[in-house]
């Protein structure tokens, strides 16, 4: 069983990212559960989403308190909140950032990885610099780093689940997969 937490901001598509990932993972016959934080989401306010993955049916319906990995969609959150809360010792933290893993204070204690998803998104004309749509790029990086599923599965999930610019999104995911 793998448990992952996503941190983002309202309006950034954090929940969509987790949904696309779940789709991709299910394509290879795994069982998956993805859910947003159960609360009131406002544009800009910090939001959280979760994924639980297993190779058999998942019966545990309680929330995730001690994730194996954490994905940070919006880098400014690293300062605003404690993104390591409950993270298993040695767990992986994937951050959308142009900085290096060593630049983060929790580097060492956790396995920190960074990916400049914003840059990839902007390059692929997904949103603007002020409001880039980074969820597919993030997903590409996550499946690679955590070894969750094949890139083809993710591409298929994106094509099915995203109606605006699906191909650009696939490209962003692929690029992130390469870079991660």
């Amino acid at each position, binding site marked *: 069983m793998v448990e992952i937490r996503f941190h983002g*901001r309202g309006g950034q598509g954090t929940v969509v990212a987790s949904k696309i990932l779940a789709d991709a993972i299910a394509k290879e016959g795994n069982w998956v559960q993805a859910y947003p934080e159960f609360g009131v989401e406002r544009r*800009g*306010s*910090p939001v959280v989403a979760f994924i639980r993955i297993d190779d058999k049916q998942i019966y545990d319906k309680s929330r995730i308190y001690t994730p194996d990995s954490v994905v940070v969609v919006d*880098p*400014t959150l690293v300062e605003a909140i404690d993104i390591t809360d409950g993270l298993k010792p040695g767990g992986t933290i994937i951050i959308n950032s142009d900085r290096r893993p060593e630049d983060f204070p929790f580097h060492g204690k956790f396995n920190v990885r960074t990916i400049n998803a914003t840059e990839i998104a902007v390059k692929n004309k997904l949103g603007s610099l*002020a409001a880039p749509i980074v969820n597919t790029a993030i997903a590409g990086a996550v499946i690679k780093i955590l070894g969750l599923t094949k890139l083809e599965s993710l591409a298929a999930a994106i094509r099915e689940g995203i109606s605006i610019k699906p191909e650009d999104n696939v490209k962003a995911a692929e690029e992130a997969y390469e870079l991660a």
Partner: protein
Amino acid sequence: MREKKAKKIVFNSAEEMPTMIASVGSQTHNLTGAWRNIRPEIDLAKCLKCGICWKFCPEPSIDIVDEWPVVDYDYCKGCGICAEECPAKCIVMVEERK
């Protein structure tokens, strides 16, 4: 209620909570500045003191301090209305440091 940065309330037991579901603290404990993507910066040199930014701020996070408009970044959510409405165009929205 209006007191800024009021403290968070922690109830340690049901006992401590009033019978009725009545508020006991101020929402100002919630520093919504953290929501901001872009921040307003006022160029006071150009300011006309028209009060329009103060008037239209939905938080409201523009205070009048010594007769000048001052953004309270603890709460400003960065909506950009003040910049949009300022007749002197002396408020600019800049990106928050990432």
